[in-house]
C-alpha cells in the first residue's frame, strides 16, 4: 500500500471504478487490501443476510400476495417496506464503494500517495466521528419514523378494510380510489368537509384564545405595580402541572347537564342553569374551546414571562419620554418582541391543536352524534380517523384521510415557518 505511481498517463480511476462493480475489487486494484476485503465482506454478508427479504420483499410489495391461504398481505407489505429500506441502504454502501475506488484511483493518477491504513483509520475517527455517533440514532429513526410513515402512505392506496382483511382475504392495491371515494361519495364528502371545517375553527379558536390569554396575563403580571407576583404566577402555572387527561375527565363531570357544578353552582347564580353542554354540538364546541384555553395558556404564559424579562427597560423609558401610551408601548415594543422570540413555538401550538386528540376524545368522545354524517358533532379529523379504524375497520380510508391531514399540516407549517421573521437572518433588536 501507498506505493508510488510512475506514469501520468495512467487511467487508474476509471479502471478502479469499473472493477468496483464488484465491491472491493476496485480497492484491491488500488492496492488497499484491507479496505477492499471489508467492502467485499460487507457486500457478501448483505446479500447472504438479506437475500430472502429482498426476494420476497419486492414480490410481496408488488402483488400483496396471491393466495390468501399462505400470503398475509399486511405482513408482505411490511416486509416489502423493509426490503425497500434495506435496498436503499445497500445502494448507499455501494455508492460509497464506487466513490472511494474512483477517488483513490484519481489520487494514483495524480501520483499522490493513497492513504495508509492508519491514515484511513484516523480519517474515520477524526472526520467521520460525528457520523459514526449518529449512525445508531439514524438507523433507529428509519425504523420508528420513516417506516410507519411509509406504511401509512402505502396503506392509503389499498382497499384494506373488514372485508379485505387477512388471513381470510388479500389486500389489493387500488390506486387513488380511497381519495376519490372520500370526495365523490356524498356521505364521505359531507362528513369530511364538516369535520374539516370544525377542525379549522377548533384549531384557530382554541389556539388563538390560549395564546391571547397567555400573553395578556404575562404582560399583566409583568407590571411592577402588582404585588404577590410570584404567588400569582405559580397559580397560573397550575393548570399545566396537572396531567391534562385528569383535568379533561374532571371537566367532563363538571359540565354534566344536571349534576355538573358548572350548571348547578356557577351558571345558576346568573339564572342560567340548563345549558346542554354535552348533548348540543354548539355548546360542546364552546365548552371544548374553553377547556383547551384553560389547559393551554399556562405554557404560553410561562414562555412569554421569560421573554418579557429580557426586554431592556430602556426601550420603555425612551417610549415614555416620547409620550407613548400604554397601548402604544404594548403594540410597538412588547408585542413585536414577544412574537419575534416565540413565533415558532406559537405555530407548533396551532399544529398541536389541529391534532389534539386527547381533549376531544376524553371530553365527550367526539359526540354528541349528528345526523347525516359518520362522525360525531365535535370530531376533529384525528378523532374521526380513530373511530374509522377502531369501530368501522376502514383502514384504507383512514390512512387516506391521515394523508390528507398530514398534507394540510405540513403545508401550513412550512408556509408559516417560512413567513416568520424568526427564520430570517436579519436581526430585530
Amino acid at each position, binding site marked *: 500500500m501507498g506505493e508510488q505511481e510512475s506514469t501520468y498517463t495512467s487511467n487508474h*480511476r*476509471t479502471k478502479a*471504478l469499473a472493477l468496483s*462493480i464488484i465491491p472491493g475489487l476496485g480497492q484491491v486494484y488500488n492496492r488497499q487490501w484491507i479496505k477492499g476485503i471489508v467492502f467485499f465482506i460487507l457486500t457478501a454478508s448483505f446479500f447472504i443476510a438479506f437475500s430472502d427479504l*429482498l*426476494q*420476497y420483499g*419486492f*414480490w*410481496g410489495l408488488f402483488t400483496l400476495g*396471491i*393466495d*390468501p*391461504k*399462505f400470503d*398475509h398481505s399486511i*405482513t408482505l407489505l411490511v416486509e416489502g417496506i423493509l426490503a425497500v429500506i434495506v435496498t436503499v441502504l445497500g*445502494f448507499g454502501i*455501494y*455508492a460509497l464503494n*464506487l*466513490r472511494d475506488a*474512483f477517488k483513490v484511483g*484519481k489520487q494514483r493518477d495524480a501520483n499522490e500517495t493513497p492513504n495508509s491504513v492508519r491514515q484511513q483509520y484516523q480519517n474515520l475517527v477524526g472526520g467521520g466521528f460525528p457520523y459514526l455517533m449518529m449512525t445508531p440514532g439514524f438507523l433507529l429513526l428509519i425504523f420508528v419514523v420513516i417506516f410507519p410513515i411509509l406504511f401509512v402512505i402505502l396503506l392509503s392506496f389499498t382497499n384494506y*378494510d*373488514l*372485508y379485505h*382483511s*387477512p*388471513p*381470510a*382475504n388479500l389486500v389489493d392495491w387500488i390506486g387513488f380510489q380511497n381519495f376519490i371515494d372520500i370526495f365523490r*361519495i356524498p*356521505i*364521505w364528502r359531507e362528513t369530511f368537509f364538516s369535520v374539516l371545517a370544525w377542525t379549522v375553527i377548533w384549531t384557530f379558536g382554541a389556539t388563538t384564545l390560549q395564546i391571547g390569554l397567555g400573553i395578556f396575563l404575562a404582560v399583566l403580571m409583568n407590571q411592577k405595580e402588582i404585588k404577590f407576583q410570584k404567588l400569582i404566577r405559580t397559580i397560573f402555572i397550575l393548570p399545566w402541572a396537572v396531567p391534562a387527561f385528569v383535568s379533561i375527565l374532571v371537566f*367532563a*363531570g363538571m359540565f*354534566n*347537564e*344536571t*349534576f*355538573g357544578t358548572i350548571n348547578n353552582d356557577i351558571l345558576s347564580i346568573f339564572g342560567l342553569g340548563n345549558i*346542554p353542554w*354535552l*348533548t348540543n354540538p354548539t355548546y360542546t364546541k364552546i365548552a371544548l374551546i374553553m377547556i383547551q384555553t384553560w389547559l393551554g395558556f399556562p405554557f404560553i404564559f410561562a414562555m412569554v414571562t421569560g421573554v418579557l424579562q429580557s426586554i431592556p427597560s430602556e426601550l420603555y423609558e425612551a417610549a415614555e419620554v416620547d409620550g407613548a401610551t400604554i397601548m402604544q408601548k404594548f403594540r410597538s415594543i412588547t408585542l413585536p418582541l414577544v412574537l419575534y422570540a416565540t413565533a415558532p413555538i406559537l405555530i407548533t401550538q396551532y399544529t398541536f391543536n389541529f391534532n389534539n386528540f386527547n381533549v376531544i376524545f376524553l371530553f*365527550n*368522545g367526539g*359526540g*354528541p*352524534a*349528528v*345526523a*347525516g354524517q*359518520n362522525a*360525531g358533532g365535535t370530531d376533529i379529523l384525528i378523532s374521526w380517523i380513530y373511530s374509522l379504524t377502531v*369501530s*368501522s*375497520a*376502514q383502514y384504507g380510508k383512514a390512512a387516506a384521510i391521515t394523508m390528507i391531514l398530514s398534507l394540510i399540516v405540513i403545508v401550513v407549517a412550512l408556509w408559516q415557518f417560512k413567513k416568520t421573521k424568526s427564520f430570517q437572518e436579519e436581526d430585530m433588536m
Partner: protein
Amino acid sequence: MKRWLSVLLIAFLAVGLLAACAPEREQEAEGSGTDGESSEEGSTDETAEKPDKLVVWEDKDKGVGLEPAIESFEEEYGIEVEYKELNMSDKMREQLRLDGPAGTGPDVLTLPHDQIGQLAIEGLISPIEVDSSVTEKFTESSIQAQTYDGQLYGLPKATETPVFIYNKEHMDKAPESFDELYEFSQNFGGDKEYGFLALWDNFYFGNAIMAGYGGYVFGDDNGAANPQDLGLNNEGAIEGAKYIQKWYEDVFPAGIVGESGGSAKDGLFQDGDVASMMDGPWAYQALNEAGIDYGVSPLPELPNGEYPQTFIGVKGWHVSAQSENQEWSTKLVEHLTNAENAKIRYEKTDEIPPVKSLMEDPIIADNEKANAVAVQSQRGTPMPNIPEMGEVWEPMAQALQVIATGKASPEEALNEAQDTVKTNIELNHSGN
C-alpha cells in the same frame, strides 16, 4: 464524465438487479407456496394424531374456573393444556390478529359473541362440527348467538343480560310492571332522588324497551340476521321510543344522558339516592363494595303486556382458524362446556352458563341474582353477531339521545337513524 459515469453504472446495476431477481422471486414464492401446501395437507391427514399440547386463551381473572376442566381433560386424553389470560373485550381480538397468522396463537379462545361475525370474516376463527346432542344441551338463544352465516363457530360458556336491580332500603320487592314502577317513581323521594334509572339513551339498554314493543335490529332470514331488513323505525320501535321519552320527561334527569351518564347513574345509586335501576350483573361488584343492600329480579312487564327484550351477551369458546389441531381443539371446547365443567365454572366465577340442565339446578334457580339473569336471558334476544351491527350503535345512541332530551320526536329521530344505519351498512359492508 466521472460523475455521470458512476450514476449510469448505479442505474444500470439497479435495473439489472431488479430484472434479474424478478422471475426468481416468483419461483421462490411459488416454492414456498407449495411447501406450505404440502405441510398443510400433512397436518390435515394427521388430525387423528394427538398433539403434545393445546393452548387456550381465557378472559382476564377467569382462569380459576378453567383449571379443573383442564385437569380432567389432561387426565382423560393425555394432552397437555396450557392457558393464558387476556382481556377478552379488546385485547383478545388484537392479539389474535397478530399471533394467529404468525402461528403463535392459541388453539382455543374465548370471545364475546358479537365479535364472531367480524373474526369469521377475517378468517381468524373456524366453524366447528359437533353432534346435535351437544348443541341441544344449551339454550336456543345461546346457540343462535354462536352461529354466524349458518355455521356454528363455538359453544357458549356464559351468558349475561341487564336485569332489574333495586335498593332494599327503598323497595321491599321488585314491581310486577313498569306501570307500577312509574307510579312509584312519581311519588318517590325529593329533589335529585329517583325511583328508577336506566341508560335508555344507550341502544344496548334502550333496545330492550323498543324490542319489547315490536322493534328489531335485523330481520330474521332463516335463522340468520338479514342486514338489509332493518326494524329500527317500525311502529313498535317508535312506540317503544315514545315510552322511553315519557320516562325521560317525567322521571329521569338529563344528566344521565350521554357518554358520562353511566358514571352519574352509578354514583347516584351507590349514594342511595335511587331506588332501582336497570343494569347488568357486572354492576354487582361495585354495589357490594359500596355496601348497598340490593335485590335483583328480571325486568318488570311493559304496559303492553310484554317483557322487555334485553340484549343477551354470550361468551363462548372458539377454535382458532390457524390452529393445527382443529379436531382436538373442538373436543376441548366440548369438554370445557359440558354440564359438569360448566357447573364448576359457575361456582368459581359466578358467570351463568346457558346450559339447560343447570338453569333448573337449585344452584342457579335458588340464587336470586343468578336466577334473575337466567330468567331475563330467556326473554331476551342475542345481540346480532354480524359486523353490520357496528354501524347501528352510534346512530341509534344519537337518536335515543335526542329523544331523551326531547329535541326530536321519536318518529323523526328513528327515521333519520335508520337512514344513517342503512347508508353506513351500504358504505362499509357492501362486501366487495
